[in-house]
């Protein structure tokens, strides 16, 4: 039974762009599973490790020197909010894998603070994923994942791991922080893959 006069903060928009069960959010909710890490840029590195033919690592300066892109994408959180046309700046994962051959079919993104999330390799390649350090024309704020986060907009936003420090390639799929609790290993919002077994 509904509460008289209560409605959600933003009205639901009936766009063809909204995956099932989502609504359009005006703000940008800050939701975290732990304290905001504060890694100094002088200590920050990004690594490609694990089942690859050659591990790679970049310092912040080296990372900033890589070719960058400015994707504009819709994002979808499993808690049902979506945002359209978010603008980011960063390096395509394809660029990071240019001289690297993945030998495993899965990847785990690992982050400052211990967060991890798992993805199939094909979901981070072919122009589908970036490591971003800018949002909306500004440096990415710590509460939103800065200095850098993963961006995989075609999957639920928990796969876009905040404070990312690298990608570890694996032969097997290793469920990450939310996946071990029961969230989906892949997380396609168009198929409503919210929980294991969906």
């Amino acid at each position: 039974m509904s509460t008289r006069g209560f409605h959600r903060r933003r009205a639901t928009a009936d766009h063809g762009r909204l995956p099932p069960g989502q609504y359009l959010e005006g703000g940008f909710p800050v939701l975290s599973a732990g304290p905001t890490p504060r890694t100094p840029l002088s200590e920050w590195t990004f690594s490609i490790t694990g089942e690859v033919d050659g591990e790679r690592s970049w310092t912040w300066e080296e990372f900033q020197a890589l070719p960058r892109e400015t994707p504009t994408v819709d994002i979808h959180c499993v808690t049902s909010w979506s945002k359209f046309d978010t603008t980011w700046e960063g390096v395509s994962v394809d660029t990071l894998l240019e001289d690297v051959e993945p030998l495993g079919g899965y990847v785990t993104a690992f982050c400052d603070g211990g967060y991890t999330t798992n993805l199939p390799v094909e979901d981070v390649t072919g122009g589908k994923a970036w490591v971003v350090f800018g949002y909306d024309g500004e440096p990415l704020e710590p509460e939103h994942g800065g200095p850098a986060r993963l961006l995989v907009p075609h999957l639920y936003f928990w796969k876009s791991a905040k404070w990312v420090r690298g990608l570890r390639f694996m032969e097997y799929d290793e469920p990450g922080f939310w996946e071990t609790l029961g969230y989906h290993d892949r997380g396609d919002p168009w198929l409503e893959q919210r929980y294991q077994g969906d």
Partner: protein
Amino acid sequence: MSSATRATDWRFATVAAIAPETPRAATLTLDVPGWRGHRAGQHLDVRLTADDGYRAQRSYSIASAPEDEKPQITVQELEDGEVSPWFVQVAREGDRFEVRGPFGGWFVWDAAQTEPLFLVAGGSGIVPLMSMLRHRRNQGSAVPVRLLLSVREPDDVFYARELETIGAEVVITYTRRPPAGWDGYARRVDRDMLQEVALLGGRAYVCGPTTFVESVADLLIELGQAPADIRTERFGGG
């Protein structure tokens, strides 16, 4: 509704009365079927459901004393809030929403406790402490008690009139706009202020926004209060 309803079960509460507390806060008195009372310091969970099935859930401390027949909550309207504006601007007598509780076994005070009491509130953090003060008054407890309340400006003081006669020493500090002619504290709580005001050695309860609570708790420890004698409750937004 079964009288054996557990605290953990959601049930419908009806607004029995609603009154403004300050320009931006309201106190609601609730009819909760099967209500079996609460301990001073406990809180309720509330749940509102929109027509499209969207649900929002929050926790609110119980302001009323355990001796009162019906529980009361005081809700501060938060800028950009989703739930608090409903309570403060929309809710009226007869409205129904879901509640569960009361909850809380740590941040509670009973009049059987005999140690001196030092209460520190940041803004709306005064709500659970007011339940404690009302309980102490109702029980005729003579336990020494002092309340330090930090608010931005006079309009942010809940229960202003009642605090004058609640039987506690009340010290207020205004962090943004003190009243005209004010000669009391007019800054954020700091070590010097606590050194002058704190009632140490008994039990301290600190409630308010997270950074406020942690800053005050750290300072009390610096001043010699045993960490085990400090109870804290952190409030968030929403």
